[in-house]
């Protein structure tokens, strides 16, 4: 079932979505945007649409199937955007039988509306008391009115102010807004539609059933076994979270430091997963926290300050990097506070950290000065002119301050892996339809997809093929509603991927092969590229900023040297 909401007259229609059968998650959101949004429309115009969609396995008892996708034309990149998020919303919408909510049009007056979804239907309601609130206060008000059991996705002041890096914050299993649909400024699109929050109450619903329950159970068991036995998903992620990558990337010489001027940070160990876990455990916080129903990996955590007060959660590697090494800051408490401020004002912590680093490069503050960085974040919260510049992202910040070293692709900040030292990620950054996005090429690899073998991260050979296969497989996983981190285990345990295929088939009574699902992944990329081309963003934009090709990155003293002509072959399939 689909709901279509027109904010111009606040009408709500129920639809079957005949055009969109057999699609979920990113495949669905990108198809809707490609089909229904005029690619040249301004991201804040009535022609842009914001969609909330569930994945193929949402609302089921499948392991780690709690993710959902938001889609729109991005105000940050001008490209199509899919932003994937955990928390409890995806599962509840799935149980409510909702495949998509399509929001179109613009409201006639600047008011604060919420979309309230339950088994009784979808209702657009005005809640003026939410206007001007940041995310934590918004969540508290909504929970006191509607109870703790609802799932909430809402924007903060950054979204209301239509800052191009605004995110949408979603509540986790404890009801705290620690999960973000972070990238690409979809919070600003939500703000332009006058929607402050979406809330879902799935009381009275049941777990979604399968056409073939026995086959589902068998597939589910295979995936669960893979996740529970692989050392990444059963040990490293629950113990250290994704922040386990800090020391590893630092050692590989690929941890971008002080605005991409070095690949090693002397303070890496202080902000790495090992120190993070030790600090959390010492203070009675929580590691091994699951952000969504059915998560058996539990990579998230709850971080407390020295006084034992909860500061933040879902403290990812990319945020510890963007607000840490990238700024030359190695104080975890300061980084945790900055992460909280990003989540509360409602901006993407990657884009914001990178923008602050670019501002530091310009001399607005000194690298390593965490207090100054915290003040800059407050500027975003207050919506001052400086705050609005930073809140519009790294590219705009670079332009305003005349900085040359601006790490963005298609207007979106490059995250935590330096493409000179990890060249395969560089190919993905350069070519993904989303603007620089590490998660676009994250998925299943090796023998299963015929990638196989060993690439040398410092050499160009084999990287294009690797990135191509990663991007295709990722587009498929992003369409299932599964957390992308299930892919971490599948590299070595082929049964896990079989389990995913079997569950998708069992849910709908299909008989698809892995090849068919990968074809779905390819079609997602084709849809997205069609939209981008129509929006005027051609293959010429598929490259990294030129400093990556010219400036040597210590300690390996390498540049990004994959020829542009080779990058142009990524989508030859």
């Amino acid at each position, binding site marked *: 079932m689909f709901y279509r909401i027109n904010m111009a007259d606040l009408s709500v229609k129920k639809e079957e979505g005949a055009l969109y059968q057999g699609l979920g998650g990113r495949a669905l959101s990108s198809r809707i945007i490609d089909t229904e949004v005029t690619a040249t429309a301004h991201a804040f115009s009535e022609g842009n649409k914001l969609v909330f969609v569930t994945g193929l396995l949402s609302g089921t008892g499948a392991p780690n199937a709690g993710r959902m996708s938001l889609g729109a034309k991005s105000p940050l990149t001008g490209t199509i955007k899919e932003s994937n998020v955990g928390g409890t919303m995806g599962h509840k919408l799935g149980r409510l039988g909702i495949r998509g909510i399509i929001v179109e049009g613009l409201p006639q007056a600047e008011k604060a509306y919420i979309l309230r979804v339950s088994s009784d239907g979808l209702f657009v309601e005005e809640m003026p008391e939410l206007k001007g609130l940041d995310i934590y206060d918004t969540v508290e008000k909504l929970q006191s009115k509607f109870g703790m059991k609802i799932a909430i996705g809402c924007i903060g002041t950054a979204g209301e102010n239509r800052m191009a890096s605004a995110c949408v914050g979603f509540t986790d299993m404890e009801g705290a807004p620690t999960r973000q649909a972070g990238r690409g400024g979809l919070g600003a699109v939500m703000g332009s539609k006058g929607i402050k929050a979406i809330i879902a109450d799935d009381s009275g619903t049941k777990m979604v059933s399968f056409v073939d329950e026995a086959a589902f159970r068998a597939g589910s068991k295979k995936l669960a076994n893979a996740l529970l036995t692989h050392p*990444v998903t059963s*040990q*490293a992620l629950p113990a250290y979270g994704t922040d*386990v990558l800090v020391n590893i990337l630092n050692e590989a*010489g*690929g941890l971008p430091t002080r605005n991409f001027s070095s690949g090693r940070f002397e303070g890496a160990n202080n902000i790495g997963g090992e120190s993070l876990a030790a600090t959390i455990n010492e203070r009675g916080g929580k590691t091994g926290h699951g952000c969504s129903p059915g998560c058996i990996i539990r990579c998230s955590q709850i971080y407390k300050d020295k006084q034992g007060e909860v500061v933040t959660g879902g403290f990812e590697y990319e945020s510890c990097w963007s607000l840490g090494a990238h700024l030359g800051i190695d104080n975890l408490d300061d980084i945790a506070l900055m992460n909280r401020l990003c989540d509360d004002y409602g901006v993407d912590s990657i884009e914001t950290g990178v923008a602050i680093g670019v501002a530091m490069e310009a001399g607005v503050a000194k690298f390593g000065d965490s207090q100054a960085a915290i003040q800059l974040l407050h500027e975003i919260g207050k919506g001052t002119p400086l705050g609005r510049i930073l809140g519009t992202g790294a590219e705009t910040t670079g332009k305003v301050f005349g900085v040359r070293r601006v790490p963005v692709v298609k207007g979106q900040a490059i995250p935590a892996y330096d493409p000179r030292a990890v060249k395969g990620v560089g190919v993905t950054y350069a070519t993904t339809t989303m603007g620089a996005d590490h998660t676009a090429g994250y998925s299943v690899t090796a023998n299963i997809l015929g990638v196989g073998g060993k690439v040398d991260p410092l050499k160009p050979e084999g990287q294009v093929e690797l990135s191509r296969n990663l991007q295709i497989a990722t587009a498929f996983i992003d369409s299932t509603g599964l957390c992308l981190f299930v892919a971490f285990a599948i*590299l*070595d345990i082929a049964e896990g991927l079989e389990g995913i295929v079997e569950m998708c088939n069992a849910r709908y009574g299909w008989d698809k092969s892995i090849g068919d699902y990968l074809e779905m992944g390819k079609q997602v990329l084709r849809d997205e590229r069609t939209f981008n081309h129509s929006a005027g963003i051609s293959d010429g934009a598929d490259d990294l900023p030129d400093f990556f090709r010219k400036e040597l990155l210590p300690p390996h003293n390498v540049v990004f040297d994959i020829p542009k002509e080779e990058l142009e072959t990524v989508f030859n399939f």
Partner: protein
Amino acid sequence: MSNPIELRGFMGLFKVFKERNWSNPYILTIEKIVTGDELLIMLEIEKEQVEIIFVNGKAFLPSDARIQSGDRVALVPPGTPGPYRVLLGFVKKE
């Protein structure tokens, strides 16, 4: 005189270093070039505890690693997220 090596331990080995009262990085002198496997025996660290050894920022299987004085070395247990094992070159061609 030979230069010492700088040795780091990640994930579970971070704890092991602590328990042994080793600094992290632990500074240690080796007399001759050793393989990763030999280094682990010297350190009394189980083979299963280490998937990859970084030597001067490059990833090697323990059996392929060659370590000499002055090197910066890091021991990485199994647990690096999948795609990075490929992207960082941990996965060895069969």
